[in-house]
């Protein structure tokens, strides 16, 4: 039984992440009075990319060839160590010590994402194309500034929940009175800004364009093709879903099941998590349809807002 749960935990994020992207694209298309592609289109795109041949520049080093696998693996690892529908650490039956629990510490998660960004930026620069270079330099600027907001918003949650592990945080938060969770509203605002910046979404980056003035994430993966591009795209989708799940499960922890035993409990928790995630995804799509992208030099203001909101939330939740 535990082994099954282990495999479920491992596969659930990569299995559902393209659906999240498809949902955002569908909502955006609807808001622009288009019918839009089906929500399953990202799956077909990935399938098509996996069938295609690859072209790799002869100047590319091992970093270019190796980083898609590393980046994808990191998202799988983090996806397996965060609570999805139940906040329970799972381990293999025959190897109980092998668990994803240590990777569920919020600092580990943040720095695994930093490692991912690091290799993404390196592989962008590796082939020596001009696009990759500016994409990487912009990405490192955004990542360095977004990290503070991400860290402090999660730190506020961690202090409130008196635990550093995201799985334990969700469990502990459910036992706190409602009043103790209010400061987390401010932390949630900080986290959302960091989410948009980390996932190359509006108003920091435009995920739907290859215009050289605006692209950040797309510029870095411009040289990739075929299977490696598929892995990169899939990893980006995983990252978005992981951030969404962290946002809904940490800041609105009600309904997340605390055991795998009761079927009805799991059903309710699945419905709630899907509902909350859909609301958040809709919010992102709404934001992307209604606001313009910021100039790159206004992005630091936004990310600093995220940082200060995170520290204010921390100050309020410490003294509370």
């Amino acid at each position, binding site marked *: 039984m535990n082994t099954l749960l282990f495999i479920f935990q491992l596969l659930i994020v990569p299995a559902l992440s393209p659906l999240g992207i498809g949902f955002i694209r569908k909502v955006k298309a609807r808001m622009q009075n288009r019918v839009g592609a089906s929500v399953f289109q990202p799956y077909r795109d990935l399938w098509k990319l996996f069938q295609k041949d690859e072209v790799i520049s002869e100047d590319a080093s091992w970093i270019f060839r190796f980083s898609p696998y590393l980046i994808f693996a990191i998202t799988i690892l983090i996806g397996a160590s965060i609570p999805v529908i139940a906040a329970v650490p799972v381990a293999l039956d025959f190897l109980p010590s092998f668990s994803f629990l240590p990777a569920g510490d919020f600092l580990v998660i943040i720095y695994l994402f930093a490692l991912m960004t690091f290799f993404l930026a390196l592989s962008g620069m590796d082939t020596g194309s001009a696009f990759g270079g500016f994409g990487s330099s912009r990405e490192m600027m955004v990542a360095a500034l977004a990290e503070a907001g991400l860290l402090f918003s999660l730190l506020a949650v961690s202090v409130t929940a008196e635990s550093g592990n995201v799985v334990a945080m969700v469990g502990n938060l459910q036992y706190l009175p*409602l*009043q103790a969770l209010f400061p987390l*509203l401010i932390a949630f605002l900080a986290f959302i800004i960091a989410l948009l910046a980390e996932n190359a979404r509006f108003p920091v980056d435009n995920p739907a364009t290859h215009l050289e003035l605006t692209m950040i994430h797309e510029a870095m993966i411009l040289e990739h093709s075929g299977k490696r591009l598929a892995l990169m795209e899939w990893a980006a989708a995983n990252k978005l879903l992981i951030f969404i799940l962290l946002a809904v499960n940490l800041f609105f922890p009600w309904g997340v099941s605390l055991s795998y035993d009761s079927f009805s409990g799991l059903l309710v928790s699945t419905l709630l998590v899907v509902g909350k995630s859909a609301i958040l995804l809709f919010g992102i799509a709404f934001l992307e349809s209604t606001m313009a992208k910021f100039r790159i030099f206004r992005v630091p*203001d936004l990310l*600093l807002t995220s940082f*200060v909101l995170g520290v*204010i939330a921390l*100050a*309020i939740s410490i*003294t509370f």
Partner: protein
Amino acid sequence: MFEHFAQFFFFLDLIAFIAVIGMHLVKSNTNIIRLYFLQSLSVGVLLFSVGLVEGEHSLLWIGVLTLVIKSIVAPIFFARLLRRFSAQQSANNYLSVPLTLFVLLLLVLFSYSNTFLPLGVLAPEALGSISLGLASVFMAIFLLINRRGAFSQMIGILALENAIVLLASFIGLEQPIALEVGIIFDIVIWIVIATAFISMMYRQFKSLDVSRLTHLRED
């Protein structure tokens, strides 16, 4: 009885607090009015619900009056004023956004520091709300200092007044109804006078930016 609703009151306090932070960050006067509406709404609802919980008719009436004057009449009045001067966009800070945020952070930390711990004696069960209210008061004062536009400064004073009402209601300093109604009446008069001044200023200088007032004009 009061303890059961403490969560709800703290939530309203938090909304007002977030509204004041937002007033420092938004770029357009229209959004400042929206945030002022949000803050007034939470203050009015707070007074009204405290009145309900404690069964005091005077607080109920003051809550209703606050809701009507501050969150309905005043925002509509301001929105019309802005449309007349077509000044929807002129909201600037003296400090840059990062510095503004840094000052806000310091103000919040200051109001949560031990300096104001003695105030906790007044209402030990609502210490968090008092600190939050103090932070709102300081941030509203800073809004007055930091904004360039006369209109934003006017909203700053009103936000300060809202924050003080909020703080006073958490500490438990309710006044007799005559005095409270008098204060609200004062605010109405104050809005009218400030509007008159702003209109005169706009007619003379064709701008609501107070830093332009240093250049004298004769015509």
